[in-house]
C-alpha cells in the first residue's frame, strides 16, 4: 500500500503532515510562552458560563484555599476550588467529569472546560499592580 501512491494521496498526506507539524509548533510556542516571562505579573482566573463572564479572581492574591459552587442554568453544578496561584474543579455532577480530571491549572496553556455545563475557566496574566508601584522603564515586545 505504500507503493504507487496517487498524486491526490500524496498531496493529502503532505497536508496532514503540515497540519500535524503546525499543531505541534502551536503547542510548543504556547508552552514556552509561559515558562519564560511570568515574573512580576498577576495571575487572573476568568470564569465564563454560556460565554458570559461570571467572575474574575486574582489568584496571586489568594493566600488560603476556598471553594464555591457554580450552578449551571440547565441544572447541575461545579464545585470550584481556588488555591494560592491555581484553580480547578473539585466536584461536578456532569456525566463525564472531564473537568475534574483536568486538575488544577496555574498557566494559561489550556483552559478548564465543563462542556455539559458550558463552564470555562481561563487564566490570564496581567501586570496591573506594577503600574502604580513602579514606572515602567521600557515596553519591549
Amino acid at each position, binding site marked *: *500500500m505504500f507503493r504507487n*501512491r*496517487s498524486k*491526490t*494521496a500524496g498531496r*493529502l*498526506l503532505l497536508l*496532514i503532515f503540515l*497540519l*500535524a507539524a*503546525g*499543531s*505541534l509548533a*502551536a*503547542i510548543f510556542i*504556547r508552552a514556552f510562552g509561559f515558562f519564560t516571562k511570568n515574573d512580576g505579573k498577576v495571575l487572573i482566573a476568568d470564569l*465564563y458560563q*454560556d*460565554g*458570559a463572564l461570571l467572575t474574575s479572581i486574582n489568584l496571586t492574591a489568594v493566600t488560603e484555599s476556598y471553594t464555591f459552587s457554580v450552578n449551571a442554568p440547565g441544572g447541575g453544578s461545579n464545585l470550584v476550588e481556588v488555591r494560592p496561584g491555581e484553580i480547578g474543579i473539585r466536584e461536578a455532577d*456532569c*456525566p*463525564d467529569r*472531564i*473537568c475534574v*480530571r*483536568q*486538575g488544577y491549572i496555574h498557566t494559561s*496553556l*489550556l*483552559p478548564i*472546560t465543563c*462542556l*455539559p455545563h*458550558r*463552564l*470555562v475557566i*481561563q487564566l490570564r496574566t496581567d501586570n496591573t499592580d506594577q503600574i502604580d508601584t513602579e514606572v515602567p522603564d521600557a515596553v519591549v515586545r
Partner: protein
Amino acid sequence: MSPKKLATLGLFTTMSLIIYGVECAIPPLVPIPGIKLGLANIVTLVLLRDFSLRDAILVLLARILLSALLFGQALSLLYSLTGGIVSLFLMALFHHFLRKKEIVITSILGGIGHNLGQIAVALFLTKTIGILAYLPFLLLSGILTGCFTGFCAHFLQGRIPRDR
C-alpha cells in the same frame, strides 16, 4: 431494501454499538474534552469502502441515536452527531477523490473532521473563544486516532464479506 440487506446493516449497527460501548468503559486517556479513540469509526470506514455511502450514513445515525439512549449521554448527542456527520462527509468526499484506495488517509481526514465539528459545536454552545486553545491538541489527536482506526479498517479488508 431487501431483508438480507436490513439484517446485514443491523449487524453492523450492533457491532459499532458494542465497540462504542466498550470504548465508553475505557477511562479517558487524556483529560482534554473531545479526545477519544473513535473505534466505532472502523465500522463506518468498512461500510464506506465495501458497501455504500447510504449504508454508512444509516448505520452511523442509528449508532449515534441508539448510543445516546443506551449509554445515557444525551448531552453529548449534539457533539457526536455534528462530529460524525462532518467526519463522514469529509471521508466520503476524499474516499471518492482517492478512488476508493488509501483508507488510512481517508480515516485521518475523518478524524480531523470529527474533532473540527466537535469544537465548532463547543464554540457555539459555550460562546467562549478561549476553548480554541484545545484546537492543536484536537487536531493532533484526530490525526493519530484516525491513523489507528484507518489501519484497523485496512487490515479488515477481505475479512468482512462485501456487499453483493
